């Protein structure tokens, strides 16, 4: 089935302008449930309740408030919030070009494929230029009243935009301290590295399937037909006491398999 474009924009840098269409590169495959009232299994309705009165407040009568660090609230009305929204437009502005992987997976949020919008030749020229330069563009755009930052890159030769998380949303590893302790045993480290080496393989995403989703759907089907479903209690595995011994045994087991 052909994908439908979700937005149109124009990639711009220096004097370059390339009109493109955005397509979501991902699709939702989750099993969706609804919340029901336990008593009669009727779907529930969600509402905003005033805790003092216990009454639902209609959406039109609500306002938004910002909570300060001290806990006070500053209220905003709709017009004020709208005034703070970013100016919309069609520009996908590339502010700089970076070496590949300068922006790494930590920042990645959602991928969008880009297709041509009107001019095929400009589109393919962009793909070619990105390929030749080997760079990624750092992009800014406003889509549906929301500002985005993203990486303009190639995916299998096709231009794509990877939207990125904002700086405030990514916890820097540098700010954290790893667990500390005595120097690790050299022999144990060596065994662990050997074990990693024995388990090394290429990454093939097609090898993995969401089998659990299938099982959830089977469970639903079984229950629909009125079958009884057995529930197995979950027990957690115990931590290893003797690391060296466990590593040695693991290596032995892997060697046998090989």
């Amino acid at each position: 089935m052909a994908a439908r474009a979700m937005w149109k924009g124009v990639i711009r840098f220096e004097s370059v302008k390339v009109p493109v269409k955005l397509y979501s590169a991902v699709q939702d495959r989750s099993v969706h449930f609804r919340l029901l009232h336990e008593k009669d299994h009727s779907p529930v309705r969600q509402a905003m309740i005033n805790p003092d009165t216990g009454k639902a407040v209609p959406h039109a009568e609500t306002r938004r408030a910002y909570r300060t660090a001290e806990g006070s609230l500053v209220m905003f009305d709709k017009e004020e919030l709208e005034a703070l929204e970013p100016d919309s437009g069609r520009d996908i502005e590339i502010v700089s070009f970076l070496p590949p992987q300068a922006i790494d997976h930590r920042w990645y949020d959602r991928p969008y494929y880009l297709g041509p919008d009107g001019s095929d030749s400009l589109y393919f020229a962009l793909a070619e230029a990105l390929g030749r330069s080997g760079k990624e563009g750092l992009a800014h755009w406003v889509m549906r009243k929301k500002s985005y930052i993203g990486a303009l890159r190639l995916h299998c030769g096709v231009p794509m935009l990877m939207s990125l998380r904002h700086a405030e949303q990514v916890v820097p590893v540098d700010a954290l301290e790893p667990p500390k302790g005595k120097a690790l045993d050299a022999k144990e480290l060596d065994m662990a590295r050997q074990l990693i080496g024995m388990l090394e393989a290429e990454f093939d995403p097609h090898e993995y399937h969401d089998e659990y989703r299938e099982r959830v759907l089977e469970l639903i089907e079984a229950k629909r037909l009125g079958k009884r479903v057995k529930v197995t209690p979950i027990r957690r595995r115990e931590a290893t006491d003797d690391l060296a011994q466990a590593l040695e045994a693991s290596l032995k087991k892997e060697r046998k398999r090989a």
Partner: protein
Amino acid sequence: MPDLRQSRRKAKRKTETKPKTEADSKDNTEQAQSKEKKRFHASGPRPLWSGTITFGLVSLPVNLYPANRPKPVSLRMVDHEGTPLARRYLCVKEDRVLDYDDLVRGYEVEKEKFVVVEDQELESLAPEQSQEIDLKRFVDLNDIDPIYFQRAYFMTPDKGVIKAYRLLAQSMQESKRAGIATFVMRGKEYLVAIIAEKGILRAETLRFADEVRTLDELNLPPATQPDAQRIKTMVQAITALSEDGFARESLRDLHSQRLIARAEEKLSRGEDVIALDAVDEADSSPEQGGEVIDLMQVLKQSLAEGRPPEPNEQPDSQPTIQAKSSRQGTKHDATDLEQLSRAELYTRAQKLKLAGRSRMTKAQLVEALANA
């Protein structure tokens, strides 16, 4: 998604007339945080998932915490007078507010006919995977296409088991390999790449292949040979704009900053401000905004000590010697409480319903909590 809380989120999106983002997973972190919050006890934030990493025959207990924070600003919904509202579920027939205990999760098999599914049933669909991340494969991190990466979680040692954690982190880091596994968290299966960096293990969830669209679906026009001069101009422009890297600063959320600036401006003028005292009961509702738990603090603490076993934990998890000694350190005495921010102390005071908490200074809160 089978998670009850995620169903709530779906419902939330429906009633709020926020501009609909196509991004289903976009606000998951935010949700993850509120999920987490819902489960918080006075003893501190609980991880999103607790389980065991198995590596060969080595097993080590770990906790998962989000590595992403929610958006810097999340606005709360209030009524005309500024009373913070709580998100609740109503029985349509009886027109009354339901407790969370009155809710079940159902899958619509035909119009208005639902099959109810319990949490335990979902968990028992994959008993091993619900509690175990089995590292059976290690790959070169650069082999994983960016398109698969979804969201990051930090893994911290649990039950005081630190040595095995350090050993795995260090050996993976030195081998420059990421471990690949699948596991089940809150009713959903995840494919993950476990990455070791700076001695810390991180789980990056990856999309399953069928969650990524193929390029064939785009119906792209056949490639044409673009004009050589045009390509040259573009390459020159790319070179002109080239930089070696980017400053973290450049990825800041400007919209949120503008909002905060505007809020502060109004605060200084005393315009539309509801003072702290009046807001006292504000976030007694777990579903509301008002995120005050400091993720950083939680991460630092759990990395340092490994969350010790809870006193009421199942007897099948025998505490190790390290765990015993670290447990003493987390008793909630005044010294520990002093490490917390006032906002966090305030939340705890709220949970314990300490009287007069909104007027207390940080020191007073510490004292009141230590004696609680």
